[in-house]
């Protein structure tokens, strides 16, 4: 598998580290990890980084994850980049809102590394 650059968006720095570790445990080789603590920071990060994958929380201050997905869908630089939500919000309406806005996957916290693998590899076009 080619090395990828991942953008991890979560207001918790601890959770960003756990998500990064889970990606590595899933066998995904990371060339670079870009971190953002809310949707607005993530939009800025997309302007200056070439990203292959975005993992994004929903409940964040400043700009939440659903709004970020909607805004990212309008950005030429974000076209085609798979977005997977990682969130405590488990309701069907949140899942529908995220997928309708353009997210390609949805992982509920708490999660196992296997669940990250199961949801992330397909959006990268990789077999599990």
């Amino acid at each position, binding site marked *: 598998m080619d090395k990828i650059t991942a953008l991890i968006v979560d*207001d*918790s*720095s*601890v*959770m960003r*580290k*756990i998500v990064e*570790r889970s990606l590595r445990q899933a066998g995904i080789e990371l060339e670079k990890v870009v971190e953002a603590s809310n949707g607005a920071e993530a939009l800025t990060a997309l302007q200056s980084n070439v990203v292959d994958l975005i993992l994004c929380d929903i*409940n*964040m*201050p400043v700009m939440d994850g659903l709004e970020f997905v909607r805004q990212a869908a309008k950005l030429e630089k974000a076209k085609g980049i798979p977005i997977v939500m990682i*969130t*405590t*919000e*488990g*309701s*069907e*309406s*949140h899942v529908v809102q995220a997928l309708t806005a353009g997210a390609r996957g949805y992982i*509920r*916290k*708490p*999660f*196992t590394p296997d669940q990250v693998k199961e949801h992330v590899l397909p959006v990268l076009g990789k077999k599990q």
Partner: protein
Amino acid sequence: MTTDTSLVTRSHEENWLPIIELAVEEVFEMMVGCRVKVAAQSENKPNEEFTAMVGLAGALCGILAVCCDAKTAGEIAKRMLGDTADSQEQVADALGEICNMIAGNFKNKLSGSGDRCMLSVPTVISGGEYSFHSLADGTCLETVLLFEGAPIAVRLQLES
């Protein structure tokens, strides 16, 4: 696991304690990598040097809090991060995220609550010299679980 406990049965909220305990057990097993078990009633309550809180609004109004002593909070953070949890900020962040996941996991287990109950971002208080007063009458459900033998209190304070 999702229970069929519905929010329309708020009158049975005293039965929610096992659901809270299950939510805590799953979060620790998946995110901290260890099992916690419900403490016997004779166990001491924790020295509440760290308190993480998440607010609930909507169909459920109140606060879910996770309290433990500083050593336990540090150990939880180390387990989550490896040996890199070396600052008080990281410890608070880790405990806040644990509280957030417990609240979310609990809410998701109550059928019908996901769409009608929102969570705040977590707040963490360090230091035990404070007291908590709620202006609203309501129910307080509290359980103590043991993490590596150390007590952790989980408290759900609901407005009536």
